[in-house]
């Protein structure tokens, strides 16, 4: 007894656009948290290569904690834990979710950015130095733009995941897609049906994102990066094994 009528209603007939609104919440939280996560990740990645060892330790411990513990706990630490310590610190739901997601994403992005910076041929930094560029300028003008090409595919994965992970926000009552399905479904026991509705929206969001990602990838690939990365990236495996005759 699957309530197709309910699926149909919430997809196409709902005058309140309940799920459209929920998708909007999912989307903006994901976008903002991902953006902050990228910036944080860059800072952490640079800290981990710093000469000043306390920077390295702080960045290391940060990454250890945020990658090692569940995001749910991180959200609840802000939502339930923080007010237990500082009674006045009653962050609203969206703030708890946004902060926890951003901090968490920063830890994951730092690993990605670190690997990407490392993949830029060392000759590029040397050439920049030899032309008299100070470290900061060389990073900004030469290294980071080239690292972008390697960052974008895993960043795309992260963002894809992020949109689905926002479902954790429903634990503290934020009505994104999964939470909406649960709250609207629980009254008459059609949670499963409404999760299917939510899934349609998720698939829509992730599919659109896939196209955007492809487009960004092409944009950051004008004059491909160094030869080493080129050889790795350029010839896709399919191209190469396709040549195998018979």
């Amino acid at each position, binding site marked *: 007894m699957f309530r197709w009528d309910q699926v149909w209603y919430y997809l196409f007939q709902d005058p309140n656009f309940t799920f459209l609104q929920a998708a909007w919440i999912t989307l903006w939280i994901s976008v903002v948290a991902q953006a902050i996560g990228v910036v944080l990740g860059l800072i952490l990645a640079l800290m981990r290569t710093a000469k000043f060892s306390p920077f390295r330790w702080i960045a290391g411990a940060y990454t250890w904690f945020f990658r090692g513990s569940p995001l749910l706990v991180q959200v609840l630490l802000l939502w339930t834990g923080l007010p237990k310590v500082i009674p006045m610190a009653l962050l609203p739901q969206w703030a708890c979710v946004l902060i926890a997601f951003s901090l968490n994403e920063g830890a994951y992005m730092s690993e990605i950015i670190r690997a990407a910076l490392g993949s830029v041929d060392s000759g590029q930094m040397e*050439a920049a130095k030899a*032309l008299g560029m100070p470290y900061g300028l060389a990073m900004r003008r030469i290294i980071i733009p080239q690292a972008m090409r390697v960052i974008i595919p895993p960043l795309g994965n992260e963002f894809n995941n992020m949109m689905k992970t926002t479902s954790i926000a429903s634990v503290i009552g934020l009505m994104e897609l999964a939470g909406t399905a649960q709250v609207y479904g629980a009254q008459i026991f059609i949670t499963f049906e409404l999760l299917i509705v939510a899934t349609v929206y998720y698939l829509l969001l992730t599919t659109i994102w896939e196209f955007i990602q492809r487009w960004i990838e092409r944009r950051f690939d004008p004059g*491909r990066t*160094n030869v080493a990365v*080129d050889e790795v990236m350029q010839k896709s495996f399919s191209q190469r094994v396709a040549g195998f005759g018979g």
Partner: protein
Amino acid sequence: MTLEKLDNSPQNASNGPMVRTEQLVKRFGSNLVLNGVDFTVDRGQTVVIIGPSGSGKTTLLRCINHLEKIDSGRIFIDGQMVGYREQNGKIVEDSEKNIARMRAQVGFVFQRFNLFAHMTALENIIEAPIHVLRQPKDEVIERARVLLDKVGLANKEDAYPHRLSGGQQQRVAIARALAMNPKLMLFDEATSALDPELVGEVLKVMRQLAEEGMTMVVVTHEMGFARDVADHVIFMDKAQIVEQGSPQQIFNEAQNERTRSFLSRVL
């Protein structure tokens, strides 16, 4: 952090040699790579360094513009100490800003070109003059076009590095270095990553530079080039300068056994 009002014009030249090293020592771990190297490059001279693989040629060039720190000794470019300064009688490493300022006056051409992969030929050339020397963009572009023409690539200004042959990339790299108006150019096996047929076009550009009076230090395996163009040839082996002199002295009248055996293998 960029360097403003850098005077890269040739007027501020003093009178001593352009490059002078004193008892240069460089180790990688326990591996002694430069074992007390003294040498001098006079203004307008082309000095060619030859020697077997691993003898320290690349390391010497890299020390000159402080891409490697040195363990002891001193290097002077145009009378100024490189990479270090005296402070209360002790020698300390110079500030990042000063080192960058010094490097901006020295062109370095790498074996593997190292063009900025995300920029066109023209963008590669104008990047540092605009962002390091803070020169006006229009002027820089104009000069960059003249340089591209000089290295025979006037029609390639919009090409990205991966669309250029090795020889073309190397010529863009030379133009990029020249766009900074350097007082000194360092070449590290600028042709050894090229197909044999492409070597000629790069050597031609280097030869022309030498004729125009640029001060150059050139590490190369092209003995023909060394013989024709060098004012002075240095033979290095096992972290030391073994022998030096005019091309005639080195190629035809080498005194040292190691020099002779090396030359017999590569000529």
